[in-house]
């Protein structure tokens, strides 16, 4: 059996860190939205924004990685159309991982609460204060979030299917430990 070609350690770290942050940011966003105004709510909203900015930066780093690297090939037992679909899904995920933080940033600007990353670095306001625009951007932000939820669901379901049903090496390429070689 030929050894599996895995993603590089950098790509694997960026992928799982992004996954972890989405796993925190998404329920945090839903929860804080329902909270009555309190210091806790203000803190959680800030943390949510900081995580969003971090995901945005990580996604830029991942795109830079993609420019310089070719991802390890999928097992050739997978039909070509499925390989293309997987690639399309990955690109859509990248698009959302950039657009969702930007929509949140725009929304913060429109609502008149600038983003101060980690409480240290104030990001410039992208638009002026405008309540109606802020509400509209909130709807867009939420719609994109649920779009992301659906795509991540497909992404995870595919990974599980390949690992446990097809028993191929698709998931192994992205696991941080296990057998295989890294380029």
């Amino acid at each position: 059996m030929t050894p599996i070609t895995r993603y590089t350690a950098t790509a694997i770290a960026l992928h799982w860190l992004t996954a972890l942050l989405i796993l925190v940011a998404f329920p945090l966003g839903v929860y804080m939205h329902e909270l009555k105004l309190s210091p806790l709510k203000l803190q959680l909203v800030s943390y949510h924004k900081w995580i969003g900015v971090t995901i945005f930066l990580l996604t830029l780093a991942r795109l830079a990685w993609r420019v310089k690297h070719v991802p390890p090939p999928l097992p050739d037992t997978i039909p070509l159309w499925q390989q293309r679909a997987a690639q399309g899904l990955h690109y859509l995920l990248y698009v959302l991982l950039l657009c969702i933080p930007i929509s949140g940033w725009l929304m913060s600007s429109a609502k008149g609460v600038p983003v101060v990353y980690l409480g240290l670095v104030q990001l410039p306001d992208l638009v002026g204060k405008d309540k109606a625009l802020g509400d509209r951007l909130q709807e867009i932000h939420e719609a994109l979030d649920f779009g992301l939820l659906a795509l991540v669901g497909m992404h995870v379901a595919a990974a599980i299917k390949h690992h446990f049903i097809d028993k191929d090496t698709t998931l192994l390429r992205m696991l941080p430990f296990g057998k295989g070689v890294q380029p």
Partner: protein
Amino acid sequence: MKNIYRYFMPLLLASASISSYAAEFNEVQAGRSTLTFAYRQMNVPMEGRFNKFSAHIAFDPAKANSAQAKLEVDLASIDTGFSESNDEIAGKLWFNTKAFPVAQFVSTGVKTLGNNRYEALGKLTIKGKSLDVAAPFTFRQEGPVAAFDGSFNLKRLDYAIGEGMWADLGTVANEIQVVFHIVAGAAPAKK
């Protein structure tokens, strides 16, 4: 018509200021005056304003030291930009506007700092607590109208603004900057 004003008003104003308007500014123009505040929330700079307040001032630059000012702020008229926050701030833990609807500043004196700069000293009363404040301001006269621009900082916990869970200064900072822009006309000088 507008153009006529643009070109002739400065002349009119200039001549007026030389002759008869070295007078007492005491007719506050509420519609042109503003009272705003700035603070930090999770280290995010935030701003708000009070939509209703009344100001009575009597200021003659020639006799600045005997100037007087009294401001009354309708605290329920606060506008933070968020209706949820406005409701919260009117509530018991913040301004408790049912029991203390009005914040009041009454001057006790005015110091001349030079170069059109002054400092208003006085008592600021919020939520039943009166403390001394000093508010530096600039005086800018344009004929029969003058603008008083200034600000001062207060510590919200000194007045118990934001009690209970809100007393945590890590979320909403203690320091609040109050910024005033008061426009007042002068009664024509009696000769």
